[in-house]
């Protein structure tokens, strides 16, 4: 009774909280008899939040310069240590550390990414831990109450729990509807939120309903280029589900190992294709195109300087080393499809040496 009262007082009036036909008369009667003078302490989201927090992680990696924070958020999505987060520069290092809610630290391994959705799956050596299930639930709608869990501003460190914001889903719309206004490769459906989720470090955080069920992934920082307004949004988990399943199951080629692969006698390389990568000076130098040779197949297919190569034949090749390695598995007579990021667009270009 007190729980219901409190929900009515300050909080969530989602569809599911409406009284049933049977319960209503009893509630009406009781409400006339008892009007509490104040709120019991347990009438809050505290219980929901304490159940969600063990599924949240803090992620530390590359960055730390020029307003690029070296941290972001993530969430555990399996009992095998799979962590869902956004794919960003923070992961551009061998040394990506995942810190659990209880303070335990793990070196993580990037096992796959989907650049179109902007997500990545990390894995840590962890089992028997609470994790988000992705069971089908009613599609969230505008007006539904939400909670947003993230390590915004890096407020939490060590065993400190993630920050939690509350709000409602303001709209469900296509991010691409504002094409040009937002610099993002993701164009799909998003929840627009009235909670301030778009903060440094919040990307990769969890959007849940008020029962703590996962309904979305907090997106990367996004500001409207025209009016400089930051957009508070999350990508519906339903949109990500297939990709997550594929990444975890190893059904996408992106993270499959090289054990069974054989290198051809004469393989492809950037020079054959007619482009030069930027100097490989870091552990994970992003595979930016520095130069395109005139008259080459790369020029013919309109590869351009400053294009960022992400995938080669759908396998991750987002660093100079990875790209060269991937090309070394492709026979020079075979075509290769490069997925590149040019500005905010993802483009596939297929190159074949004549």
């Amino acid at each position: 009774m007190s729980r219901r009262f409190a929900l009515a007082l300050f909080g969530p009036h989602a569809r599911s909280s409406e009284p049933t036909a049977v319960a209503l008369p009893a509630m009406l009667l009781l409400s006339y008899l008892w009007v509490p003078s104040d709120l019991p302490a347990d009438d809050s989201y505290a219980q929901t939040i304490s159940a969600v927090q063990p599924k949240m992680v803090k992620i530390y990696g590359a960055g730390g310069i020029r307003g690029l924070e070296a941290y972001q958020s993530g969430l555990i999505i399996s009992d095998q240590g799979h962590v869902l987060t956004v794919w960003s520069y923070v992961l551009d290092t061998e040394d990506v550390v995942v810190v659990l809610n209880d303070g335990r630290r793990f070196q993580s391994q990037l096992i796959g990414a989907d650049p179109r959705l902007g997500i990545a799956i990390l894995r840590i050596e962890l089992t028997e831990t609470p994790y988000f299930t992705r069971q089908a639930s009613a599609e969230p709608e505008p007006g539904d109450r939400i909670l947003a869990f993230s390590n915004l501003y890096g407020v939490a460190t060590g065993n400190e729990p993630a920050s939690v914001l509350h709000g409602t889903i303001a709209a469900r719309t296509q991010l691409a509807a504002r094409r040009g206004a937002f610099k993002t490769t993701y164009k799909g459906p998003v929840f627009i939120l009235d909670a301030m989720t778009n903060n440094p470090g919040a990307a990769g955080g969890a959007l849940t309903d008020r029962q703590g069920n996962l309904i979305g992934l907090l997106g990367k920082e996004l500001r409207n280029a025209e009016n400089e307004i930051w957009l508070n949004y999350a990508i519906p988990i339903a949109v990500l589900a297939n990709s997550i399943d594929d990444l975890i199951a190893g059904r996408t080629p992106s993270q499959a190992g090289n054990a069974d692969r054989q290198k051809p006698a004469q393989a492809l390389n950037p020079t054959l294709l007619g482009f030069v990568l930027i100097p490989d000076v870091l552990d994970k130098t992003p595979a930016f195109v520095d130069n395109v040779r005139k008259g080459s197949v790369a020029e013919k297919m309109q590869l351009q300087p400053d294009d960022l190569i992400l995938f080669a034949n759908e396998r991750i090749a987002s660093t100079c080393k990875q790209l060269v390695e991937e090309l070394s598995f492709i026979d020079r007579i075979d075509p290769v499809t490069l997925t590149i990021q040019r500005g905010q667009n993802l483009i596939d270009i297929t190159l074949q040496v004549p």
Partner: protein
Amino acid sequence: MIQAHCWTVNGRRRRAVRPRGASLLAVCLVIASSITAFATEIPPLVRNAEQERIRVIAKAKATAVCIFARGGHGGGSGVLISPDGFALTNYHVVKPAGNYMKCGMDDGKLYDAVLVGLDPTGDVALIKLLGRNDFPHAILTDSNRVCSGDWCFAVGNPFLLATDFHPTVTYGIVSGVHRYQPPAGTLLEYTDCIQTDASINPGNSGGPLFNAAGDLIGVNGRGSFEKRGRVNVGVGYAISSNQLRNFLGYLKSGRIVDHATLGATVATSDDGRVVVSNILDSSNAYRRGLRYGDEIVAFSGRPISSVNEFKNVLGIYPRGWNVSLKYRRDGQDFTIVVRLMGVHSRRELLSKIQGPTAEKPEPSPKKPKPNQPDAPKRQPRPAPQIPLPQPLPPEVTKLVQPREGYANYFFNQENQKRIWAATVQHGDFSKSKGQWLFSGVLTAGGNFQIALEDSRILAQFPSGPAVVDTTLDLDQQTDPEGSGGLLAALHLWRRLLTLGPDEFGEMFYLGTAPTPSQPGLFDVLVGTYNVVQETRFLFETTSGKLVGMEMALNDDIDRCDIMFSKFKAYKGLQIPHKIDVRHGNQQFATIEVSNFEIKTPTAKKP
């Protein structure tokens, strides 16, 4: 027939639907039935809950204060915590205002207020509103019971919108508890604070954060902004009510109070333990046995597993408080009680705040510190131009007494008077300057005698005779051995009782503070006399009875802590018949007095 029709309300054109002729009744019926249907869709439970929320907010809102600095620029928020007008706010709010400000309240009235106390390190200030003894006030509740996810609401003066003095209410949830936000330098450190997504904007600083029951859980003062500009981005921080409660007694003393340090720094070791990484050998912690490399297990009863947790505990205590510390060395745990040192020297603190008691405050706020949502740089609406008489109004002037080292010395003096007026109710010792003779037994065994005179103290203990010559420097006269200077302390006790605080020596009111051996808080007067480093006199807050002392003869020796009890009347004077003496947190003796008398003054030697 229904026709669209326009009319104006207050000069604004509104579009509405106006029924005509026979259709009027039908429309009314439809509307009436709609209203009935709508009403039945809202369970009374919800409507009652809404009424309850309105009641809670109205009650809480009445305690909020909208602060406007002199000159009409700058300001912030505050919250009343007592019917006689004491209100909490931020240091960075009152800094530009100086020692006098105007405060608007939800009753639509504007009140004068004076500065009382400052805590620059914790970004807290105490002010006093004038003119009433029945101010609505908030109740400081236990912030350790606040959980992430609890509903809360902030009340205040965001963007200095409250030109009509009615504050703004914003609500949200608690986003995190026990947060640590590092200081700017050594000032404005937010430890153990509450994080909320209730909108905290420039001008909300110093205002209250309430729980859903309308009890005060914190004072808002900071947000994370960084590249988002200085408006709310869902990350505000409130100083916890528990920290405020610890400092409140100090702030009422009119002083500029300091925070505490252990005299040691801690760091996380490679294996994740929190260990002492540096320690001052002059610190009380060192004296109690803490050493480099020891693992901090618990601090003030809270388990410590990170440096932030350690800083969170440290930050909620004022300088000089005693806190328990559990450390581990070679697998063995040790628990000690540590007296915390000050973060700053007195000079350091004064120089850092650069004259907060200046008579003439700045006409407009300085450029705000990062993360501090105080008065906005660009105000969307002009702040009210309040005509301010120069000099201060007479009723305010008498409540303002600038003095170096104090936010407002007036309140220190008032407290000294208050305490002494209560103390003399337990006996006026001013005519009792003769020889005070105590005799009785020690609970550990053996008899004792002590004779207190102006010029000397003579005593006989089972361990042997003890003597103090009060005409010489007292700082090395530690008799009886192992007591830390019991006889010197009793001399100072007698001196205070017979001469009073005005003639004792230099004296100030510290505030309310705990003592290690007794529960509760005591009013504390701190005296300096002879070359004794410091003497604290502890008074019961309710009765004013002098019930204890803590005396440090010099830097190199632990204090002599004394608690007086079992008071019995002797010629109208309340005399303690039990004296507990501790030294270095060890029991030295418990003295049971069986006989006490005052002999006529001894003639002074030529």
